[in-house]
C-alpha cells in the first residue's frame, strides 16, 4: 500500500454514551490496522430517524452541516462512521444533493454551504475493502476458534442497495468474512437484515420485545454462543433489553451481543480497556471461556 487509507470520522451521538465501547473499539481497530481517522471538527447530530420523519430537507441539512465540516479537512478520501443510522443519513443527504434544487434548499439552511458532498462509508466497509479479511487474518494473535457467532447486520446497513452501495442487501457477507478471518465460526443466521425494533424501545417497548426476541431465538436455535452487531441501536435492544425480553417471553437467553469491532480487537490482542467488554450487559466471559475450552479439547 502506498499510503494509509485516511477518512474524515463521524462518531455519532450514541458513541458518547450508550455505545461508548463501539466507539473506542472502532478507533482502536482502525488504528491497529493502519486506517487513519480524522474527527470531523465540532460535528453535530445527523438528526437520526426523528429528523427524516419530519422533513427530508431538514434531515439532509442536519447531516449536511457535518458534510460541510468534513470539507475543512484535507487529505481525506471520504467519511467513515461506525453507526448505520448516521451512515444512512449522510449518504441519503449526499445523494439527494445531486439534485441542484434540493442542494440549494439544504444549503440555504446552513451557515456554511456544502460544496461537494464527500462519499460516506461504514467503518465495516472500510475494514472490509481497505484492509480485507486476508490481511486481517495475518494480524490475528489470539484466534477466536470455537466461538460460534451469529452475524447480525441490522436493517439499514445494506438497504436500500441503491443508496448504501455495499455488500448484498438480502444476505450481506462482509462481517461474516471478517469474523471468519478471526478464526470464529459463523453460524447460519437467516435474520441478518431483519429489524430489531429500532428506536421504539422507549415509546413502544412491545415492538422491541417481539422483534429482538425473535432475533435472539433464531440465533440460539442456530447454535450461536454470541451475536455480533454493527449498530448501536441493535446492540442496545439485544443486550441491554435482553433481561426485559426474557421477562416478557419467559425465555432464558444469556446471549452476549458484541460489537464486531470488539471481537476484532480481542483477536488482535488490543488493549482490553479500549474494547470495553465490561460495558456489555450480558457478560461474555462464559462464552469466551467455552470457546477456549472447546479448542483446547480439540487440540
Amino acid at each position, binding site marked *: 500500500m502506498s499510503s494509509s487509507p485516511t477518512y474524515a470520522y463521524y462518531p455519532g*451521538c*450514541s458513541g*458518547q*454514551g*450508550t455505545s*461508548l465501547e463501539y466507539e473506542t473499539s472502532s478507533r482502536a481497530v482502525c488504528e491497529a490496522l493502519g486506517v487513519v481517522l480524522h474527527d470531523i471538527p*465540532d*460535528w*453535530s*447530530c445527523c*438528526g*437520526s*430517524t*426523528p*429528523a*427524516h*420523519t*419530519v*422533513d*427530508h*430537507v*431538514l434531515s439532509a*441539512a*442536519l447531516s449536511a*452541516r457535518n458534510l460541510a*465540516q468534513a470539507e475543512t479537512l484535507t487529505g481525506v478520501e471520504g467519511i467513515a462512521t461506525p453507526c448505520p443510522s448516521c451512515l444512512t443519513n449522510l449518504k441519503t443527504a449526499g445523494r439527494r444533493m445531486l439534485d441542484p434544487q434540493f442542494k440549494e*434548499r439544504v444549503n*440555504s*439552511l*446552513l*451557515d*456554511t454551504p456544502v460544496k461537494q458532498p464527500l462519499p460516506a462509508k461504514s467503518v465495516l466497509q472500510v475494514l472490509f475493502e481497505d484492509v480485507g479479511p486476508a490481511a486481517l487474518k495475518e494480524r490475528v494473535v489470539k484466534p477466536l476458534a470455537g466461538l460460534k457467532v451469529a452475524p447480525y447486520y441490522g*436493517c*439499514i446497513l445494506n*438497504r*436500500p*442497495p441503491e443508496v448504501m452501495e455495499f455488500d448484498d*442487501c*438480502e444476505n450481506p457477507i462482509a462481517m461474516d468474512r471478517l469474523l471468519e478471518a478471526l478464526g470464529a465460526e459463523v453460524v447460519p443466521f437467516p435474520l441478518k*437484515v431483519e*429489524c430489531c*425494533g*429500532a*428506536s*421504539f*424501545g*422507549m*415509546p*413502544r*417497548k*412491545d*415492538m422491541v420485545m417481539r*422483534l429482538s426476541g425473535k432475533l435472539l431465538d433464531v440465533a440460539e436455535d442456530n447454535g450461536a454462543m454470541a451475536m455480533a452487531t454493527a449498530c448501536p441501536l441493535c446492540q442496545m435492544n439485544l443486550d*441491554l*433489553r435482553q*433481561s*426485559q425480553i426474557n421477562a416478557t417471553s419467559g425465555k432464558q437467553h444469556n446471549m452476549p451481543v458484541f460489537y464486531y469491532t470488539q471481537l476484532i480487537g480481542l483477536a488482535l490482542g488490543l488493549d482490553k480497556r479500549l474494547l470495553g467488554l*465490561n*460495558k456489555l*450487559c450480558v457478560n461474555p466471559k462464559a462464552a469466551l471461556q467455552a470457546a477456549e475450552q472447546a479448542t483446547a479439547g480439540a487440540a
Partner: protein
Amino acid sequence: MHTINLTESFDGDFVRKIECESEQNVSLCYQCGNCTAGCPYTFAYDIPVSQVMRLLQAGQKRTLLSCKSLWLCATCESCTTRCPNNIDVARIMDVLRHEARRQGYGSERSVKVFWDTFLDSVKRHGRVFEMGLAVEYIARTGRFWTDLELGPAMLSKGKLAFKPHSIQGQAEVEKIFERFQQQKEQCA
C-alpha cells in the same frame, strides 16, 4: 381479512402532493403484497403497507393521515428493497407522516412525542443528550418509566452521560431548525 373501505371521494391534490414530495409514481403499484409480506411491523399496523399504497392510489387522505401505521414504520427499508416495481415505499411512508404532522395528526402519540423530544435535544445542544432525552420524554408523556429497571445497569456500565456534550456550533444547528420553519414547502 382486512378489507379496504373507501369512504372518501378521491382527493387528487393529495395524491399529487405525495407523489411530488416522494418523487414516486404511486400508480406503478400493482398490489403484489411483497412490501407487506416483508414488513416487520405488519403485526402492529392498523393498515398494512400495501393497503396504504392502495388507499393512496384511491386518494383517501383522511384515512391515511390518521392511521397508526405511519408512526410505527421504522424505515427499515425492507419494502423499498423488495418492491418489484422499484417504488421507494419507505419514502412514501415518510412523506405521508410529514403531511400528517402538517395537518395536525399524530395517531401514535408516544412515538411522535419521542421523536419531537429527540429533535428538541438536538436543537438545544447540537448533539442528542440521551439522559436528558429520557427524562424529558417521561415528563412530556407523564408515563411511568417502564425502563426503570434498566437504570442501574446503565449507570454501573458508565454509559449514561449526566451532562450534555454541547458543541461550539450549537447556534448553527439551532438556526437550521429556525430557517427550516421559514422555508416554503416545495410541493405545496
